[in-house]
């Protein structure tokens, strides 16, 4: 379990996260949605212990960072490091030995080529493969479906289902509602640094309708398209 209690995060005077309280349980998939700049990535960075914060984040097993697979929105790759070496690097970091990395290459990536030459989608698939092979208990996937082709999106969805079966905790952010409704057990709506709504799977369609109304409003009419 991961428990976030009274979490606050400020950058100077700018309060990005305001009193966040949430629990993540084993075998469940959580969606975090919100407009750009509402604090999703900051929340993920706090959970990953990449940021200092006020409040408490606890987990079992602990420390969270040693059991967490973090997929960043834009993974960073060194120049002149191959896909295989990238996976090797991340597995070495967790002291995991994978003798047959090529056999685990389910996205058919060109592992002998430099990762920096990969397309956006390929980079994301490589980063995802690496954190999956690390054997983590928790996964934070920041926009895992962005820039990825349809076929791979189907595979990623199935991977998330499998992680749920394996009793892992998965937290996802996505700007494509259907990807969340296909994978999540709960969706939490983040707005201006705090959760304003939490919805269970049965009510996802209600949330989607509400979000559409809230987001679109009369904005399209304002364009005055003729």
């Amino acid at each position, binding site marked *: 379990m991961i428990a976030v209690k009274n979490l606050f995060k400020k950058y100077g005077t700018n309060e990005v996260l305001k009193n966040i309280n949430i629990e993540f349980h084993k075998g469940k998939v959580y969606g975090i949605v919100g407009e750009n700049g509402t604090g999703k990535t900051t929340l993920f960075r706090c959970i*990953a212990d990449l940021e*200092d914060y006020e409040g408490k984040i606890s987990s079992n097993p602990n420390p969270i960072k040693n059991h967490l697979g973090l997929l*960043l929105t834009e993974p960073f790759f060194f120049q002149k490091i191959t896909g295989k070496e990238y996976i090797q*690097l991340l597995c070495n970091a967790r002291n995991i030995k994978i003798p047959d990395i090529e056999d685990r290459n389910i996205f058919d990536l060109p592992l002998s080529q*430099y990762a920096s030459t990969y397309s956006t989608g390929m980079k994301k698939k490589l980063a995802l493969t690496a954190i999956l092979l690390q054997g983590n208990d928790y996964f934070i996937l920041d926009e895992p479906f962005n820039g990825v082709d349809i076929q791979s999106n189907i595979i990623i969805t199935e991977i998330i289902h499998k992680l749920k079966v394996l009793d892992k905790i998965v937290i996802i952010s996505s700007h494509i509602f259907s990807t969340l409704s296909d994978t999540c057990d709960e969706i939490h709506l983040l707005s201006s640094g705090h959760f304003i709504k939490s919805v269970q799977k049965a009510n996802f369609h209600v949330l989607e309708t509400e979000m559409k109304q809230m987001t679109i409003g009369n904005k399209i009419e304002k364009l005055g398209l003729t």
Partner: protein
Amino acid sequence: MASIRDNQNLRTTKQDEKVKKYFELQYKMTNRKFKDAGFNPLLAYLMLTTLFVGLSIYLFHKTDFAGYIYLLFALTLIGNLSETRRTAFLKICFSDKKLKKIRVSENLICSLPFLIFLLYKQLFLSALLLFVLATILALLNFRTTLNFTIWTPFSKRPFEFTTGFRNTFYIFFASYTLTAIAISVNNFNLGVFAMLLVFATTLSYYSKPENEYYVWTHNLKPNAFLLGKIKIALLFSSSIAFPIAITLAIFNPQNIGILSLFFLVGWAFLIGIIVSKYAAYPNAMNITQGILLALCVWFPPTLIVLIPYLFKKSENRLSSLLK
């Protein structure tokens, strides 16, 4: 016709203005770096000039190969300006003509201190060679992507030596060639230089801080993380430098003692640069650390004090990312 010429003139003036602005921006950025490191820019320029002149005098006093080291060092420095993403960005901003002007100017500005000192030393051929190579380097259009992967013996333990070897493998070939020459002309000093060149090259692998993700992802305490980095650095650098040391030892058995000492100094600098890097992490090494390392070049025993101090500092800096 006149209007076309006017338009061309206007475009040229605008481009000249852009070039001027570019160099003004570079100047501002450099000053900002000094200020961020806690130095008055004027003072920093003065200190760097003094340091450069001091080290140059020391180098030329100590070895007959200073001219070559100078050339190599200057070209390595200039080579950093040819970084592919940087060049690609400049290509977007400037026309081909202006880009060439900027790149040649940049390379010559960077090689200017070296050129002046070479001229002062009356090494006119080396100065001419540096001038020509710096200009050519700016005009050459390197391919941004290679469609083949350079083999590396360090693939199993990424990343420093994996990427570093791919960037600098030719220097190792040069070192081995120099060793062969050293043996054939019976010049032990040249052989030692070749061995130190290997260590100096591997030092450069640790000069820049990596993205925090690659530290954070380790399931290690800061102490174990640092020791792991040091172990790999010593093991891999030795595997490249060892053939040179062995060859020199076989042909100069009377100098095994001094050879071992240089090998140890190479190791000590490697440890020194690793702890310096993480003592400033996640920031880049600052000028203070640069000066301390330069002091160690002048008087290597300083490392005995500096390494434990920087190791402790590194542990503190890493403690927020490694738990």
